[in-house]
């Protein structure tokens, strides 16, 4: 008796509307008013709790409808439940990131990653074999054990992921030596990244931050982005140690710059490309959900006609 009362009172149209309306209003306000992305909106605790409550109540509605032999209603709400489950699946399994691939580099890490809670350990067996020669050139990538030619800025697909090589830049070879002798570190540094995070690098145990960017043209404008746009024969180098700007000048290739008992130089580098990686989200549950909604509506109409 209690269970029946609970089933009949926990979910009705008032509760459904009371749960769904604030979510829809919030979705619209946050999307268009606050310009938040859908993942951020769906990530709010209030939204998630209401969403789960709506799913739970839908489940109770189905049980209640089946007990009362209202099959049309049960099917239609099951369809809605599948639509909601699809939303949960999309949110939980979303994945997008960028990876910077240097020519000849064997490992690369994701950055600017956005992933759902169910995504664990995405590995991308990808390497850049050869950079592009011209503006609309092709790069040669090594994906999953075989070489593949890919056009810059053209999407391609691999095992459920949508990938795109977006532009090519140079990674000069930086050499830091101690003035007393001895190499501190030698490394290729990928310049020209358009990141929201800081774009500096550090070497060895030194606390210094090294900011390197294309040097300004005489007119004061930086070179346009694109393959070969960075004039690798001259870079603007800024060396910072906490608040102190220790070096801030244009540096020619091969020129040794002294700072705090060390020298830094750079040499001709290797090309690198940035690859955007996005998981393709497929609407697997939406098709059966549509079928159930139509079947539920048809059953309901048939019952009413009788």
């Amino acid at each position, binding site marked *: 008796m209690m269970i029946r009362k609970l089933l009949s009172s926990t979910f*009705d*149209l*008032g*509760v459904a*509307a*009371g*749960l769904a*309306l*604030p*979510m829809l209003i*919030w979705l619209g306000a*946050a999307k268009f*008013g*606050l310009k*938040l992305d859908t993942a*951020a909106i769906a990530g*709010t*605790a*209030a939204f998630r*709790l*209401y969403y789960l409550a709506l799913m739970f109540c839908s489940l109770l509605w189905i049980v209640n409808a089946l007990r009362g032999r209202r099959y049309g209603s049960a099917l239609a709400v099951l369809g809605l439940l599948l639509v909601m489950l699809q939303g949960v699946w999309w949110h939980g399994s979303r994945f997008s990131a960028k990876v910077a691939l240097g020519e000849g580099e064997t490992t690369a890490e994701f950055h600017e990653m956005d992933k759902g809670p169910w995504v664990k350990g995405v590995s991308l067996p990808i390497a850049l074999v050869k950079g592009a020669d011209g503006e609309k050139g092709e790069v040669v990538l090594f994906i999953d054990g075989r070489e593949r030619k890919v056009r810059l800025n053209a999407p391609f697909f691999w095992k459920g992921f949508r990938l795109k090589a977006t532009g090519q830049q140079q990674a000069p070879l930086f050499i830091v030596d101690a003035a007393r002798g001895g190499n501190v570190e030698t490394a290729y540094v990928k310049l020209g990244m358009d990141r929201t*995070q*800081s*774009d*500096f690098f550090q070497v060895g*145990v*030194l*606390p210094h931050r090294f*900011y390197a960017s294309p040097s300004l043209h005489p007119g004061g404008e930086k070179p346009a982005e694109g393959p070969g746009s960075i004039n690798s024969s001259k870079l603007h180098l*800024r060396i*910072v*140690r*906490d*608040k*102190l*700007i220790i070096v801030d000048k244009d540096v020619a290739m091969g020129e040794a710059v002294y700072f705090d008992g060390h020298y830094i130089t750079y040499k001709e580098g290797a090309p690198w490309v940035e690859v955007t990686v996005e998981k393709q989200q497929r609407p697997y549950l939406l098709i059966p959900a549509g079928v159930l909604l139509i079947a539920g509506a048809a059953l309901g109409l048939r019952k009413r006609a009788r």
Partner: protein
Amino acid sequence: MSVELRPMKKIFYLALLFPLMLVVLDQNVCRYALVRLPGDFWLKREKAAILGTLKTYNSILSDFYASGGVPSLLDEFPATKAIKHGIFRDLGYIKSAEKILVYDMAETIPVEVRITAPGQAEAVVFESWNYMYQRVADRKPLTLPKGMGHGFKYRLAREKGKWLVQGWDPVDIEEPKKKPEFYF
């Protein structure tokens, strides 16, 4: 009549509960919404909080350097672990050369403060510092006092109700001639 109104009551109470839950559980989102409202009451409050954080940050930073790395104010230092790690890496570097760097902030002029996303902000400030090196053993000056003025862009994140410096970079800006309204 009461049976007809019941669903409306449910809608009303559930609709009322949702913004309350947002306020309690999603404070960063609510604050972000408030600063985008017409009028600048909330925006001014948030800017003041951010600039206050930067003031505390630079004040404790000076203490860290002047004391040669005594971490007594580490818990009050409004910065992420990565930033703290970087500062003590620098302090260790200076100490290894048997020096102390004494920083003294002369002036901070805020140029721009932006709330970029829920719980995320950026602040561009022009800072003027005086500094000199001293010998660790007897605090004897090793250099003459020098001055430095430069622009810095700070990235801040709001965690557990407090703004924390998450990162910063030097930026090329001219020293502002006119001090803005939220100058401190």
